């Protein structure tokens, strides 16, 4: 691909990007959120028509205007969200939309679709049960189905968009060895990712993108993780100190940081205090959770008997594959979903009380789905900041909007929200700025228990750093923080203690530095719980 340019209105998403994948290589396409990685590959796959630029496959120029053209040209892509027919079997999903009558095996004999799938599956270590209904399969297996789908259609270049999201470390290993097998068979793989560690682990070469531009293409042998981090972040106006700080965050958020080495200034200050207290007089727990349970429809609870005890300033990380009751757990822990059991903050029991009472006691929830759960998209920033504290700030049932606006302007400054005005509807802000508004509101409550669910999903590097910074600062001020995240690296980097959500339960518990991603991975899949 050369000179690819793509604009969406005034926004230049891709600015003259050159990109080449060699035969038999795993090529990492690396960059932060919004760098243009997925857009570039969507152009290759025919989902977007480029404004300028050409695509060549095997040296001859091709015109790709639809995914069908791309498939014909031997390009296959696996997106983050799979498009599969849930009630069909694995075989049916793979065969769907193809001409299944004349298949020629490598040895020249004819093959049935089932034979072809079985052959591909064993050749590349993509273990699936061809007769299983897709709806019953876990994410990792569904992803294999998707890869098989591309291979079945004769892909020579396979593009994987952030394939490790929601996989356990074990599944990631399997995926990487399958990728290696595919490449050894003469094909090429493009791995879109924002995690430096993954590219260093599996890629032969990597291309770094930033702000829609090609930045660098390097061989793995010629680079280090630190170099890559610096390349991804680019030049920083604020000078060396800032660049170093951002690079550090990049390492954490991009998955490079080694376990136990997370140097967290603020929380490490809090730790000796806690450690000392443990030996002398145990610090009274600030938040105590006992037997918290959310009943489910079919008799199986959505949140099952969760018990926790958290000291002031402690950050608890809850890892887990999506769909293991994290959303329900988050809501139960913040009083936004009815639950049984007990949860107390500073000795005050909250279960059974209305959500407003939880908020009043300092339990603050930063939800995963910011647009749906976090903001009033049609209302201005001022109104969004008032939401939740509107009753406590009111006098005689009336809200002082003038004061609220003044506070909003101050909050916009303090949390560096990029917005034309405090009256701008929140729904018009970018994801990072929406999260800043939500955090500004959360901290205005003086939280005692702050619960964040996937707090950095979809955020760019700076906003991610901002979130981590604020979380650590809150903890250093004695707030109990619970981080529920599907990003294992994030959990490991932030937390003083790590546990795993599996099927509505919390399984295993590790102190900082004791957690090994493979142990956590086993727990995440329910093995060895």
């Amino acid at each position, binding site marked *: 691909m050369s000179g690819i340019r793509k604009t969406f209105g005034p926004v230049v998403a891709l600015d003259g990007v050159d990109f080449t994948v060699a035969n038999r290589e795993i090529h990492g396409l690396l960059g932060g959120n919004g760098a243009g990685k997925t857009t570039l590959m969507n152009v290759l796959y025919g989902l977007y028509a480029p404004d300028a630029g050409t695509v060549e496959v095997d040296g001859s120029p091709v015109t790709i205007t639809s995914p069908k053209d791309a498939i014909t040209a031997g390009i296959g892509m696996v997106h983050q969200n799979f498009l599969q027919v849930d009630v069909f079997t694995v075989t049916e999903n793979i065969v769907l939309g193809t001409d299944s009558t004349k298949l020629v095996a490598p040895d020249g004999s004819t093959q049935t679709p089932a034979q072809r799938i079985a052959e591909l599956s064993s050749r590349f270590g993509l273990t699936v049960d061809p007769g299983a209904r897709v709806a019953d399969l876990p994410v990792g297996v569904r992803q294999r189905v998707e890869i098989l789908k591309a291979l079945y259609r004769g892909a020579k270049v396979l593009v994987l968009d952030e394939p490790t999201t929601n996989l356990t470390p074990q599944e990631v290993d399997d995926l990487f060895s399958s990728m290696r097998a595919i490449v050894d068979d003469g094909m090429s793989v493009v791995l879109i990712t924002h995690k430096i560690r993954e590219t260093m682990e599996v890629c032969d070469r990597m291309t770094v993108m930033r702000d829609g531009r090609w930045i660098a293409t390097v061989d793995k042998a010629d680079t280090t993780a630190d170099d890559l981090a610096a390349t991804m972040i680019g030049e920083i106006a*604020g000078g060396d100190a800032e660049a170093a700080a951002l690079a550090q965050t990049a390492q954490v958020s991009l998955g490079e940081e080694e376990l136990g080495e997370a140097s967290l200034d603020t929380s490490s200050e809090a730790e000796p205090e806690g450690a000392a207290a443990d030996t002398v007089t145990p610090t009274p727990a600030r938040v105590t959770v006992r037997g918290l349970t959310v009943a489910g429809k079919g008799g199986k609870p959505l949140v099952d008997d969760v018990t926790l005890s958290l000291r002031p300033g402690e950050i608890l990380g809850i890892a887990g594959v999506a769909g293991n009751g994290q959303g329900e757990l988050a809501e139960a822990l913040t009083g936004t979903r009815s639950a049984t059991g007990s949860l107390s903050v500073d000795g005050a029991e909250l279960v059974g009380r209305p959500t407003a009472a939880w908020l009043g006691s300092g339990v603050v929830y930063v939800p995963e789905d910011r647009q749906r759960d976090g903001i009033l998209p049609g209302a201005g920033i001022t109104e969004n900041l008032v939401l939740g504290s509107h009753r406590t700030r009111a006098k005689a049932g009336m809200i002082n909007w003038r004061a609220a606006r003044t506070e909003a302007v101050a909050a916009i400054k303090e949390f560096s929200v990029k917005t034309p005005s405090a009256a701008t509807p929140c729904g018009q802000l970018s994801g990072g700025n929406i999260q800043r508004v939500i955090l500004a509101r959360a901290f205005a409550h003086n939280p005692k228990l702050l619960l964040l669910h996937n707090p950095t999903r979809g955020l760019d590097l*700076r906003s991610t750093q901002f979130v981590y910074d604020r979380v650590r600062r809150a903890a250093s001020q004695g707030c109990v923080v619970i981080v529920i995240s599907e990003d294992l690296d994030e959990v490991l980097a932030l937390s003083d203690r790590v546990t795993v959500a599996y099927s509505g339960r919390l399984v295993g518990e590790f102190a900082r530095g004791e957690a090994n991603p493979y142990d956590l991975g086993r727990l995440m899949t329910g093995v060895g719980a």
Partner: protein
Amino acid sequence: MSSDLQEAPTGTVDDVAVAPPLAQRAKSMAYAAIPYVIAVLAAFVVVGVLIAVLGHDPAKAFRAVLTNSFRNETGMVQTVHKWAPLTLLSLAFAIPLGAGRFNIGGEGQMILGSVGAAAVGITMSDLPMVVLLPLVIVVGTLAGAVWAGISAWLMESFHVNEILSTVLLNFVSFEVLDYVASVVWSDPGAGGAVTLPIGDGAVLPGIGRPPMHTGVLLVLLVSVVAAVMAKRSVAGFELRAVGLNERASQLHGIRTGRVAVTSMIVAGGLAGLAGAIEVSGVHQRTLEGIQSNFLLLGIIIGLIARGSLTAVPFVAFGIAVLEVGAGSMQRVSGAPVEIVLILEGLILLFLLMSDVATERLQRARAGRSARRASATATPGAPA
């Protein structure tokens, strides 16, 4: 990490405006007015053509419609007498709309209000005015609130769609009115479904000549309170929040069900108040057809005002002018009164169309940047 570190990257916003600057606000207000102007003009043009096709003089007809209210005191009093129930019925639609609920039962609630007011006014007709008049007004209001409360309760406890329940209860209310006006307190001399007159102490006093009933002042007060509450109060904020995003509201401690139910009950109360004022101020009794077409017009007003409680009384006044001018138009130009309803309907229709048009324009502009955001999360390729 130092604080200057976080500010620098995002570009510090030193002069974040509390609200957009005045010039910009005036500009955006002017832009907001464009669809209204276009809608009204287009409606008049279409109706003008229609009048001409029917063989009448459009200029004459429009002059009659638009000037009748302002030519003399009688026209003005007629207009404000129409304005009062129109405003209340429109608020009864717009308030639940704020919370995303549709109250299409305004006429049923108004009828029940009129029945409640008449019941008190007839059975306690001997009481002095200081006692009887407030009682009539309060009972009428409560009757409307209870009637709407049935729908609110069904909505909250059994998830019965409030559109259905309010509309269906309208039909029930017609039968209640018929029973009351033809059986319970039927006026034998009236020759129709009309009740006996209410006691003298139940009649709203009039001011001026021809007399304007003081219910108009009450409605004026109600609309000011409603506008202020919507803008400044906790209740108004919660109402808006629930309408904007029910889930987020609930997660932030707002009892969304309670807000929705309250909005329905308040709406019913206002519609009931309209019924009581019609009984006490205009007819001195209740009768079949007292609800007129106030429900329909109230919905039109509420939608033209786009749910803004501040705008409702003003839009209602415009519609009242048209309604009162309709009769005069028929007399002067021969164009039938129904033309006015067509005009009102077309204004709303064109407004909604211009909404869609402006939205498409905006989307064409803003969408391009939004598409970029979604570009990073494109759903899977077609199979």
